[in-house]
């Protein structure tokens, strides 16, 4: 075996892709060629060095953020019209038939035959129908728009979704079923479960930062005032807002609302730690440090504070972290 070929097979073999017979041949060559043995050693050393850049598993936050963003983008895509769905199904069927030529040919012949016959029948019926109804159609068409305005057609507005489309055969008439958004208002106390439920929904309102700001602010105020934030997912809603809301003012209010629970709820503490590490707004990161001070003895908190004190881009945040760390004796 020539060394040039051996060098290629050394690489293939190092990655487990060499067939057994070629591996055997290579082993025989390596037993006699010091140069190629050195080549193999160098390649194995390179593999070890390359492993110094580990493959990081995506964290749950990254996965969650990515999913959320994808869901929003998919929700924002316009729904396909019924005729687009039909065309796509036809294309899929055609594509499937491409893999079955004989079946495709037979189907084509049968389809042509049926289509020809059906078309002939349809043309005959249409001619007969046109001959019988032409005078009436001329008059029916004219008042049709007037009839439409006279009849009590519902106003098409605030359409949430289209649930069905039915065409009456042989006519231009189509029945479309749709769901409508009905704007409504409700008055109630902040302690009212229905009001709280609506406020929590509002924290996820992706279109209006103002609505999100108001809802998060109200819920946060409730929590800070010591009103019940245990049940009904209010704390969860604030944590989601802190982690994912694009508006810094909303995230700041969520952080303030979670303050009473940093000591007692590990999930809240973790959310605040993530804000300290990841939030783009330095005010929020600084506020997170202040919130974590009562629990700086927690190992996770100390680890994050240490990391921030050495690596944060913002000098004030690095300084504040160091000050908090220095106030607590070293934990052995």
């Amino acid at each position, binding site marked *: 075996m020539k060394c040039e070929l051996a060098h290629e097979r050394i690489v293939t073999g190092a990655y487990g892709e060499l067939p057994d017979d070629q591996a055997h041949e290579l082993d025989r060559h390596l037993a006699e060629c010091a140069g190629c043995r050195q080549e193999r050693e160098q390649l194995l050393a*390179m593999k070890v060095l390359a492993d110094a850049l580990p493959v990081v598993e995506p964290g749950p936050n990254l996965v969650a953020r990515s999913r959320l963003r*994808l869901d929003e983008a998919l929700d924002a895509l316009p729904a396909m019209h019924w005729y687009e*769905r039909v065309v796509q199904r036809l294309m899929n069927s055609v594509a499937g038939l491409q893999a079955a030529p004989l079946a495709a040919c037979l189907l084509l012949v049968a389809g042509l035959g049926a289509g020809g016959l059906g078309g002939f029948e349809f043309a005959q019926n249409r001619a007969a129908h046109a001959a019988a109804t032409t005078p009436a159609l001329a008059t029916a068409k004219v008042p049709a728009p007037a009839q439409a305005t006279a009849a009590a057609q519902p106003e098409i507005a605030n359409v949430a979704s289209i649930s069905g489309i039915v065409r009456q055969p042989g006519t231009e008439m189509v029945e479309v079923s749709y769901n409508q958004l009905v704007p409504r208002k409700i008055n109630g106390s902040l302690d009212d479960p229905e009001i709280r439920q609506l406020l929590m929904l509002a924290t996820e309102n992706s279109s209006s930062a103002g609505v999100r700001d108001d809802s998060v602010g109200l819920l946060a105020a409730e929590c800070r005032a010591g009103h019940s934030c245990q049940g009904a997912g209010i704390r969860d809603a604030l944590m989601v807002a802190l982690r994912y809301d694009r508006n810094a003012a909303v995230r700041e209010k969520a952080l303030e609302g979670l303050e009473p629970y940093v000591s007692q709820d590990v999930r809240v503490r973790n959310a605040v730690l993530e804000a300290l590490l990841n939030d783009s707004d330095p005010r929020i990161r600084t506020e997170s440090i202040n919130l974590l001070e009562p629990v700086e003895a927690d190992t996770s908190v100390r*680890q994050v504070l240490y990391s921030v004190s050495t690596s944060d881009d913002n000098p004030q945040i690095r300084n504040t972290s160091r000050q908090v760390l220095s106030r607590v004796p070293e934990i052995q």
Partner: protein
Amino acid sequence: MGGAGRDGAGPDAAGKEQARLQARADENELIREAQGGSRVAFDSLVRQYEHQVLRLALHLTGSEHDAEDIYQEAFLKAFRYIGNFRFECSFYTWIYRIVTNLCLDQLRRKKTRREDHAVVLDHSGDEIDLLASVSDNRSFSNPARELDRKQLGEKIQAALVKLTPRERMVFELKHYQGLRLRTIGEMLNTTEETAKNTLFRATKKLRGQLAELR
């Protein structure tokens, strides 16, 4: 030296093959439903592949933000073009083909702009310490080792950046993601032989770059 895997023998291998075929059949059913417009079916497909997609994008780009963008683009493209999927290859290969093309585009753009990420950045641009998620306090009691590890990682990253985008992609898929050369060839729309030659060139270049570190 490693060689090609030996043929499996006995009931275990047959059982595994059956399970694999069943899983493939289930997946094909999901794909057909997604092609029919089922969002639930498409979401199930996303769940099956999202970790691999993010892992690959994150390691190649070194940035959570870029990895998110690639994830977004890849699955939106998959949603848009799933009607074109013809079951001629596995859905795994198909989705990876989309992801690798997006990653190649990203690598080409970075090469033009000469952006090097020596460390992994989170979504707000802050550096993630790779060991911070490990519950091991030794990393904080040995800053010197921390620094060595970080510098070594930077040197590896700098060496990888010097590869062509295609070489980098093949090396990434083979060395870090552990895919077979035949699969890599399918994903990059080329042959197994070409993928093998590209891997050979990549390792040769890397050996030269990293020689000083040994």
